[in-house]
């Protein structure tokens, strides 16, 4: 038993070449299988680690009307939500180093500067609400307004340096509403888990339609009154689940539907809030309006009142004038009357004077008479008075009797009466005298007064006359004045009327505006909440898809290796069994069972295959994922993570590798072991020479030298080796051709697209809402032949094209105004035939990839659907017949004539896009861009060079894949050829020795042996070229990315190189094997057969 084991160990030691050959091919097969199969899981694992490490949001909530703090709070309350972050963002068109990009501007979370990068894929932060954590790769965080960090990727988004300035074009898109400034200084570069792919950063409604750069700025740089644009949500427990697992999807879906459940309420709240806010504003505006209106009305009323006053005054004046006229008239009459009266008065006075004179005479005469009478009485008076004094004195006596007293009293009274009478008469006379005198005086005064009055009247009349004259003059003057005032009034009135009309009109307008605003407010629709999980992030999806592509390739590629491994094992073990024929016989003779003996070979093969599996899986499961992820790293920023060995895959790979080898070994050993021991002790009957088919082609065969004949006979003598070698070499060549063809395919994207198909190098997009002056300026520049030798206007529209079987593709419809000239800029041709395809008046010409994707061929109908805000197809569709399919590599396009467009979409072509051929001079180009943008009518000026550069960079990622394929191909070639040569040499050692004895030169000996290998290699290589075409086609179609068609032709040079390289590998093997051939001793020829 132990001796048997020793035999196995020695067998290995003595046939190390054979052992290594089996181990190596199994290593290659299992390693490739395991490595490729583990790549996708490793990529997903790395992605998961990156997403978890950067706290990538699980759900993104966007509201069409923005989100409020209340909304954020409401989201936080949703069951299963572990963190919520509100964020601002806006898509803007910005210029950076003279190139224009569609930039998505985000608000930098406030916790970002405090975060700590733990490793390549992890950012630690104490703020659980800090989601989508940025990895700062260079520079620092923005600390002041006007600073920003931008995407680290400088391949796809152009060269930038710290300190560069990003200038935002406020006139495009949301920029003006969103941003508080236009200039930002780049202070840092960062990666964001929201953008894992630098080629798929998302779509935008502005510029080229795709986001090309991102930028994080301080929240202060957004307008203060802006609501949150979006909310990032982390789902509790989701990070613990693998990001690509169904469990994760289920968990997130659960929370997403919980969020959707609160959405209607929040949407209503948002619209209510907005309405209230707007209403308040409107109410304020209305109040203001009302104030203004009142003021205006008052002003108008004042003016009216003034006018009325003026009118009244005018009327008054008129009245006055009228009265003045009558006054004048009456004055005139009065004056006349006065004159008459005067004359009359003067006469009357004269009469009165005469009358009065007469009366006075009479009175004076009477008085004189009375005087005389009185003088008599007065003469008696002293007596009387004496008597009175006696009486009085008597009376004063003391005892005077009463009778006397009474008598005396009576006498006294008598006396007093007589005196009194005299005195009375006197007084009366005096009075009369005075009266007459007074009368006279009075009359005289009256006369005088009358006279004076007359005089006065005379004066008055005179004066009145004068005044009348004056009055008449004044009247005339006033009359003139009044006329003037009337004119003025009329003017004022007219002005007022005009002013009032205007004011009214303005007020009406304001009123209407307010009503409109009110209507607007009443019409505010509730916003839509879009609850999006990670599958709506194109970068993440693209990464996932690419990992799946690798899986598709992994399921196909390694079978070449397994097939070759089986063949190598079969031939090698057959040779080993043949060599040990006698030994097997001996074992049999010694009584070892067939199974036991077979086990030797099975153990040998299992050890070789097992070792190969371990080495191959161990090495390639690390190397291949690394290489592939490294290649993808050009486009994706997902830091490479741990690459753990996936045991089920490793087990499957090793099982396949070992299993195939054991099966082949068993097949190799079975036939020999069935022979009886006696037969085994004999040398094997040498394989008889046989005529081959070729010999029947007499003329050809006769022409062959003997060594060629041998070669041909040998080739057909050992069919297993033939198959092994041809398949192995075919695999080698196929791998080479696949690698080179892949490179061709990808290079052709650029080389054919921009070298043969497309002759424009700049596309200018005009703003739809530019004013006519700006547009004219832009048009003038665009039609200037100096910078743009050919320019064609066209209309572009983005629609979702739908095929017959429900396939969909975002398509750009291009409608050139001048189809003939446009074909100078974009050559339409059919790929296979190379024939030119004209733009038909009816229907659309579509690009090849689009046609294939939608399963369309000429004559079918292509349906275009309008898209909603989310980019989903709506029910509004238009069908057009497909008139032709043209070769195109980048983008999905449909071309139509303006007439066809109008018929289909019922819309005038807007012709806002200009395809043009610009000068190659960089300075002139920059000046052109500058001039165009300065007009304000131009949105985008995009040179193809930028696209070309990006693609060229991307292509470099393929180089590494090509290297891997070349290495694998070389390994395959070496293993197979080494094995074949080794077997051939050991088996034919005697023949070779004989030839040497016969005097063959080393060269002739080499040729004798190697010619066969070269022939097989050539045969294999030729087959490999055919196989390679198939393999390359498969890989190209599988690896193809959306919107891009890889080239479909493998260049002749690639065929040549793949073929030549295969022969080079063959030559290398021959060089390696030559010493072994040289070492064969001629003495060998003298020995017996075994």
């Amino acid at each position, binding site marked *: 038993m132990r001796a048997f084991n020793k035999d196995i160990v020695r067998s290995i030691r003595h046939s190390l070449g054979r052992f290594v050959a089996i181990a190596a091919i199994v290593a290659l097969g299992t390693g490739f299988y395991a490595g490729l199969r583990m790549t996708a899981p490793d990529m997903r694992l790395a992605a998961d680690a990156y997403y978890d490490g950067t706290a990538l949001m699980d759900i993104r909530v966007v509201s069409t009307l923005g989100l409020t703090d209340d909304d954020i709070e409401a989201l936080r309350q949703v069951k299963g939500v572990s963190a919520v972050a509100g964020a601002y963002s806006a898509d803007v068109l910005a210029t950076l180093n003279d190139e224009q990009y569609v930039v998505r501007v985000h608000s930098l979370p406030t916790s970002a500067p405090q975060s700590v990068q733990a490793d390549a894929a992890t950012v630690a932060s104490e703020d659980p609400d800090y989601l989508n954590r940025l990895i700062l790769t260079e520079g620092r965080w923005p600390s002041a307004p006007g600073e920003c960090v931008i995407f680290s990727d400088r391949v796809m988004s152009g060269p930038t340096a710290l300190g560069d300035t990003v200038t935002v074009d406020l006139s495009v898109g949301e920029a003006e509403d969103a941003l508080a400034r236009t200039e930002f200084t780049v202070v840092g570069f960062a990666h964001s888990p929201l953008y894992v792919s630098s080629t798929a950063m998302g779509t935008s409604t502005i510029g080229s339609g795709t986001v090309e750069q991102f930028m994080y700025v301080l929240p202060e740089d957004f307008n203060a009154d802006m609501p949150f644009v979006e909310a990032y949500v982390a789902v509790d427990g989701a990070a613990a689940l693998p990001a690509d697992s169904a469990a994760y999807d289920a968990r997130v879906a659960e929370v997403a539907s919980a969020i959707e459940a609160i959405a209607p309420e929040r949407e209503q709240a948002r619209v209510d809030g907005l309405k209230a806010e707007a209403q308040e504003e409107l109410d304020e505006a209305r109040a203001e309006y009302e104030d203004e209106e009142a003021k205006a009305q008052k002003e108008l009323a004042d003016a009216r009142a003034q006018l009325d006053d003026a009118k009244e005054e005018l009327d008054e004046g008129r009245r006055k004038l009228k009265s003045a006229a009558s006054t004048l008239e009456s004055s005139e009459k009065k004056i006349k009357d006065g004159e008459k009266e005067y004359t009359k008065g003067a006469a009357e006075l004269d009469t009165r004077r005469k009358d009065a004179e007469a009366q006075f005479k009479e009175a004076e005469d009477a008085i004189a008479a009375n005087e005389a009478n009185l003088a008599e009485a007065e003469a008696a008076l002293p007596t009387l008075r004496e008597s009175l004094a006696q009486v009085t004195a008597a009376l004063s006596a003391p005892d005077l009797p009463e009778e006397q007293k009474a008598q005396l009293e009576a006498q006294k009274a008598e006396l007093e009466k007589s005196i009194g009478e005299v005195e009375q008469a006197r007084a009366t006379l005096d009075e009369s005298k005075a009266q007459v005198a007074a009368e006279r005086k009075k009359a005289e005064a009256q006369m005088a007064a009358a006279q004076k009055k007359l005089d006065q009247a005379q004066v008055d009349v005179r004066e009145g006359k004068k005044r009348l004259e004056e009055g008449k003059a004044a009247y005339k003057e006033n009359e003139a004045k009044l006329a003037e005032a009337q004119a003025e009034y009329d003017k004022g009135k007219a002005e007022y009327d005009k002013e009032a009309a205007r004011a009214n009109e303005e007020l009406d307008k304001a009123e209407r505006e307010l009503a409109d605003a009110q209507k607007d407010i009443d019409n505010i629709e509730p916003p839509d909440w879009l609850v999006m999980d990670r599958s709506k992030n194109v970068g993440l999806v693209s990464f996932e898809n690419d990992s799946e592509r690798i899986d598709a390739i992994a399921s196909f590629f390694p079978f070449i290796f397994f097939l070759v491994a089986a063949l190598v094992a079969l031939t090698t073990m057959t040779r080993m069994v043949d060599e040990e024929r006698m030994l097997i016989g001996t074992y049999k003779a010694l009584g070892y069972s067939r199974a036991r003996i077979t086990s030797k070979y099975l153990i040998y093969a299992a050890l070789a295959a097992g070792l190969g599996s371990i080495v191959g899986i161990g090495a390639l499961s690390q190397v291949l994922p690394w290489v592939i992820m490294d290649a993808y790293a050009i486009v994706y920023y997902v830091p490479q993570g741990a690459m753990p060995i996936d045991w089920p895959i490793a087990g499957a790979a090793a099982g396949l590798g070992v299993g195939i080898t054991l099966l082949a070994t068993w097949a190799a050993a079975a036939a020999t072991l069935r022979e009886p021991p006696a037969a085994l002790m004999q040398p094997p009957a040498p394989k008889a020479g046989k005529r081959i088919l070729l010999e029947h082609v007499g003329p050809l065969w006769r022409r062959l030298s003997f*060594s060629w004949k041998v070669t041909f006979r040998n080739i057909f003598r050992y069919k297993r080796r033939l198959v092994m070698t041809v398949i192995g070499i075919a695999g080698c060549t196929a791998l080479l051709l696949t690698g080179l063809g892949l490179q061709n395919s990808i290079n052709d994207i650029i080389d054919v697209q921009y070298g043969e198909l497309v002759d424009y190098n700049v596309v200018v997009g005009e703003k739809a809402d530019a004013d006519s002056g700006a547009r004219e300026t832009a048009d003038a520049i665009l039609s200037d032949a100096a910078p743009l030798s050919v320019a064609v206007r066209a209309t572009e529209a983005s629609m979702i094209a739908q095929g017959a079987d429900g396939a969909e593709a975002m398509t750009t419809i291009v409608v050139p105004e001048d189809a003939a000239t446009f074909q100078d800029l974009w050559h339409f041709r059919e790929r296979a035939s190379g024939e030119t395809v004209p733009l038909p008046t009816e229907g659309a010409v579509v690009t090849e990839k689009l046609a294939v994707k939608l399963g369309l061929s000429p004559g079918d109908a292509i349906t275009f659907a309008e898209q909603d805000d989310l980019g989903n197809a709506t029910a509004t569709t238009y069908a057009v017949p497909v008139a032709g399919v043209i070769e195109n590599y980048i983008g999905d396009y449909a071309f139509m004539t303006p007439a066809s467009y109008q018929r289909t979409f019922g819309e005038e072509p807007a012709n806002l896009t200009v395809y043009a051929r610009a000068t190659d001079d960089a300075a002139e180009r920059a000046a052109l861009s500058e001039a165009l943008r300065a007009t304000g009518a131009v949105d985008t000026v995009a040179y193809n060079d930028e696209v070309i550069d990006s693609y060229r960079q991307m292509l470099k990622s393929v180089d590494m894949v090509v290297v891997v394929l070349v290495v694998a191909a070389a390994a395959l070639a070496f293993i197979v050829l080494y094995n074949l040569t080794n077997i051939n040499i050991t088996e034919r050692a005697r*023949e070779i020795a004989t030839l040497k004895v016969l005097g063959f030169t080393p060269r002739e000996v080499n040729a004798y042996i190697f010619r066969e290998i070269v022939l097989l290699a050539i045969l294999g290589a030729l087959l490999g070229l055919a196989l390679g075409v198939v393999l390359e086609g498969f890989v190209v179609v599988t690896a193809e990315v959306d919107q891009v068609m890889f080239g479909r032709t493998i260049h002749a040079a690639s065929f040549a190189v793949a073929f030549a390289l295969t022969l080079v590998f063959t030559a290398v093997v021959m060089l390696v094997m030559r010493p072994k051939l040289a070492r064969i001793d001629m*003495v060998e020829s003298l020995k017996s057969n075994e």
Partner: protein
Amino acid sequence: MAFVEFRDVSKIYQMGEVPVAAVRDMSFDIERGEFVVIVGPSGAGKTTLLNMLGGMDTATSGTIMLDGDRVSAYNKKQLTRYRRYDIGFVFQFYNLVQNLTARENVELASQICRDPLPADEVLAAVGLADRARNFPGQLSGGEQQRVAIARALAKNPKLLLCDEPTGALDYETGKAILKLLQDTCRQTGRTVVVVTHNSAFTAIANRVIHVREGSVAAVEVNPAPQSAEVLEW
């Protein structure tokens, strides 16, 4: 000067530290046209001698001359030319190329020579004209050896070296082969050297070289060799 001259030829193998002489100071001559048998027991140095004479190995010391050429001074390339043009070799196990017909096997040799004999003629000479299109596997041992002889002769060599040419053959066939060799020598005047352990063959030789323990024990010249037909062993 003899056709073949061995003068003090030694072949010493270095077996580790110990030098082992397979052939020591061997000297003999062979004349043109002779049928020579070199005879000796196993391990006597016959094969080494043959190797050196056939240009398959070099002598450690001494001189080997063939037809005036100093073979012992040849380098590898010259030795190849020597084997190619001057030597015809017949092996014990025929060493035919299995994948070539009888005639092709002959051509294998003749195609590399300067002045080959026509293959068909040679084959006819060895009596295999009708088997020319057969593969070795379809021929008997004797026939195969005849092909091998034809192959050696077709080269028109100066010297025909045969290593135990009958070793793998039965008695009758062996005798026929010996006769063929002897006839060849007699009829074409070609020098034939047969190496064998069978001393019975000495009877048919013009010259017999006895080899023993790496040296020439004796050289006897047989003025009247027997015909191979009557040979018995």
